[in-house]
C-alpha cells in the first residue's frame, strides 16, 4: 500500500437525514423517518468502500447525500479533500457544488430508466461536458468516442438511441457518462443488480479496470454480498440508518463482530450443494425506520439478545468501538463477548458453537 492510497478523500461525520412523515388533509407532521441517523466513515483515495444492508437501511440515501442530491440535516459534515483544499459538501455554496459535481459522479441501478430515451448515446455522454463548458466541437466528439471505447463500446454507437442497447451495454453507457468529467469519487448505487450473471461479471471487471487506470474511489452500494466481497477493500454494514460494523473486507467476512453481520453472511447463498445447510436464520422483517426500536436498533431480531435479555441492549444506543484492530469498528455492547462466525473459505459458511456465547 503506497502513500497515495492512504490519503483520505472523504470524511463523513455524523451524517443525518430525517424525512418528515405527513398525514391527513392538512399534511401535518406525524413523525420523522430517520433514513440516515449518525453515519460516520472515511473513504481513502483509490479504494472501494462497500455499503451493504437490507432494503430501507439507508444505504442509497447515504450515497445521495454525499453527492448532495439530498441535503442532510444541519450538523452533518462531509469533508471532501480535493487536491489542495477541503470542502464541506454538506454546506457547499452553489458555486462550490457546481465544481464538486465535476469531481464526483453516480452510476445508477436501473440502466433502463437512467438514460433519456429521447437523446442519442453521444448526446447523453456529451451533456456533462457541455454543461460544465469543458469542450465543444470536434474535441467533444473525439472525447465521446474515446469514452465509449474506454467502456468497451464501439464509437459508432454514439448515433444510436438507448432502446437499441441491452441492459449491460446501457450500464456501460451510464459508466461512460459518469466518467466524462474525470471524477475522483464515483458512487455506484447497485450498478450490477439488474444485470444477468454473465453480464454482471463483465461490468464488474470494467469497474475494477477503470478504477486502476483512472485511480477512482468507489462507494459501492449493493445488497449482493458476493459482489461486495469481490470488489471492496473495506465494507460498512448498515442497519436502520446506522453503520453497525465497518472494517476491511477480510475482517468483516471472516471475523464479523456484530450479530447482524453474522446473520447477513449466513444468508449468503453459495453454489456448493454441500455447504452447511444449517444457517442462522434471521427472523422477521426490518422494523420501520419511523419507529426505530429503543437502544440497539437490532435487538428485537438479535439471537444473542433473545438468549440473554441484556438490559443494555434496550436502554442504550451502542457507539462504534474498535475491535480486533483499529480499523474494525462495531456498534454492539457485547461484541467482545460474542463468538461469531464468518465465511470460512470460498463459499462455505461456518456455523460455530451452539449458543455462540463465551462467558
Amino acid at each position: 500500500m503506497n502513500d497515495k492510497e492512504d490519503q483520505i478523500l472523504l470524511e463523513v461525520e455524523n451524517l443525518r437525514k430525517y424525512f418528515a412523515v405527513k398525514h391527513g388533509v392538512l399534511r401535518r407532521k406525524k413523525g420523522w423517518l430517520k433514513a440516515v441517523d449518525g453515519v460516520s466513515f472515511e473513504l481513502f483515495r483509490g479504494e472501494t468502500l462497500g455499503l451493504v444492508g437490507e432494503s430501507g437501511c439507508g444505504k442509497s440515501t447515504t450515497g445521495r447525500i454525499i453527492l448532495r442530491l439530498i441535503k442532510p440535516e444541519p450538523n452533518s459534515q462531509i469533508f471532501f479533500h480535493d487536491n489542495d483544499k477541503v470542502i464541506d459538501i454538506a454546506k457547499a455554496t452553489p458555486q462550490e457544488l457546481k465544481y464538486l459535481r465535476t469531481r464526483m459522479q453516480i452510476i445508477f441501478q436501473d440502466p433502463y430508466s437512467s438514460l433519456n430515451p429521447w437523446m442519442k448515446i453521444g448526446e447523453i455522454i456529451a451533456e456533462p461536458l457541455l454543461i460544465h463548458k469543458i469542450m465543444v466541437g470536434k474535441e467533444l466528439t473525439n472525447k465521446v468516442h474515446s469514452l465509449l471505447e474506454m467502456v468497451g463500446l464501439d464509437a459508432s454507437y454514439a448515433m444510436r438511441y438507448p432502446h437499441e442497447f441491452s441492459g449491460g451495454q446501457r450500464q456501460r453507457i451510464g459508466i461512460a457518462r459518469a466518467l466524462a468529467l474525470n471524477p475522483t469519487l464515483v458512487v455506484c448505487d447497485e450498478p450490477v443488480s439488474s444485470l444477468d450473471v454473465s453480464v454482471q461479471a463483465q461490468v464488474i471487471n470494467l469497474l475494477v479496470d477503470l478504477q486502476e487506470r483512472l485511480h477512482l474511489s468507489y462507494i459501492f452500494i449493493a445488497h449482493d454480498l458476493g459482489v461486495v466481497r469481490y470488489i471492496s477493500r473495506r465494507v460498512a454494514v448498515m442497519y436502520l440508518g446506522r453503520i453497525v460494523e465497518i472494517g476491511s473486507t477480510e475482517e468483516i467476512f471472516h471475523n464479523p463482530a456484530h450479530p447482524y453481520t453474522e446473520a447477513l453472511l449466513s444468508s449468503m447463498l453459495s453454489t456448493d450443494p454441500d455447504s452447511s445447510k444449517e444457517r442462522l436464520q434471521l427472523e422477521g422483517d426490518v422494523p420501520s425506520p419511523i419507529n426505530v426500536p429503543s437502544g440497539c436498533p437490532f435487538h428485537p431480531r438479535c439471537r444473542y439478545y433473545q438468549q440473554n435479555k441484556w438490559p443494555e441492549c434496550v436502554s442504550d444506543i451502542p457507539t462504534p468501538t474498535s475491535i480486533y484492530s483499529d480499523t474494525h469498528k462495531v456498534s454492539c455492547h457485547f461484541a467482545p463477548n460474542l463468538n461469531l462466525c464468518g465465511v470460512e473459505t470460498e463459499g462455505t459458511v461456518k456455523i460455530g458453537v451452539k449458543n455462540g456465547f463465551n462467558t
Partner: protein
Amino acid sequence: MEHLLEIDQLKTYYFTDCGIVKAVDGVSFSVEKGQCLGIVGESGCGKSQTALSIMGLVSKPQGRIVSGKILYRDKKGHITDLATLSPNGYEYRSIRGKEIAMIFQEPISSLSPVYTIGDQIVEALIEHTTLSKKEATHRAVELLKTVGIPAAEERIHDYPHQLSGGMCQRAMIAMALSCEPRLLIADEPTTALDVTIQLQILRLLKELQERLSMGLMMITHDLGVIAEIADYVIVMYLGKVVEKGPVRKILREPKHPYTQGLLQSRPSGTAGKVRLNPIRGVVPSAIDPPAGCPFSTRCPKVLDKCSAFPPFALWEEGHAAACWLYENFM
C-alpha cells in the same frame, strides 16, 4: 417412478411483426412427486415461458404452443395433455390454481391492489372447493399462519401495499397453496427480496414441499438458489435445454461450456485475487438465434461442428449436456 408432469418437445413460439421468436424451442423434462426441479438461465432463455406454457397462460394472440406435449398425471393416475386443452376451458380452469399453482416474481405487482389478501385467498378457495365463505376465511387464516405471517387474523384484512415484500410473497405462497396443489411452479420467487428474507422464503418452500410432498419447479437465474433448494437441474439457453442433471453434478462437474461460464462468472473470494471470468458477448436476439448450438457465438471452445445442434452426451445419474465436445452421445 411415475412422473407428475412430463414435458415432451415443447415449442412455444411468438409470432411478432419482426419475426418468429422461438421462446421455448423443443424442451423436454419431467417433474417427480416430492422433487424440486430447478430451471436456471439468463433473461430471455425461455424459463418463464416454459412455466407459462404449463399454466396455459401464454399471451394471445402472438404466442402459441406450436407443438409438443405437456402430460399431467392427476391423483387417479389419469394423464391429460395440457397442450391440447383450451386455456379458458373448464378442464384447464379446474387444474390451474388447484392442481398446479404458480408463484410469480414480483409479489407486490402480482397481487391485486384493490382487494385484501384475505379476499384474494378466499376467492381461490371458493372457486376450487366446496367451502362456504366463512369456512374459506377460516382456512385463509390457517394458511397465512402456515407461511409464517404473524397476527394472521388481522393481516387478512390488509391490502398488499400495507405489507412488506417478504410478507406479500408469503401471502402469494399461501394463495398458491390454498388448494393443496400437487405441483407448485415458483418463478423467481425471491429475486425481488432481500438476502435474509430470500433465505426465509426458500426455507419455507422447501419445508412445505417436503411436508405436502408436492412437486416444486423453481425457476431462477441464481445458481445459489439452485444449490440451496433443487434436487435436479435444467440449464436453459435461448429456448433450449443445454444441460440437465442432479444438482451436485451440475454444480460440481458442469459439462456444458455455458454452465461452466455461469459458475465462473459468479464473484467468489476477496478483492484483487482473481479477475472474474465472464462469458464474452451478449445473449443473441431470440428472433435470429445462431444456427446449431445456440451458445456457439459466445462459446470459448467453439468447434466447426457447432453449426449443427448437438445431441445430448450422457453421463451417470442422468447427467446430460448438449455439446459437441463430448462423444458419449445417447
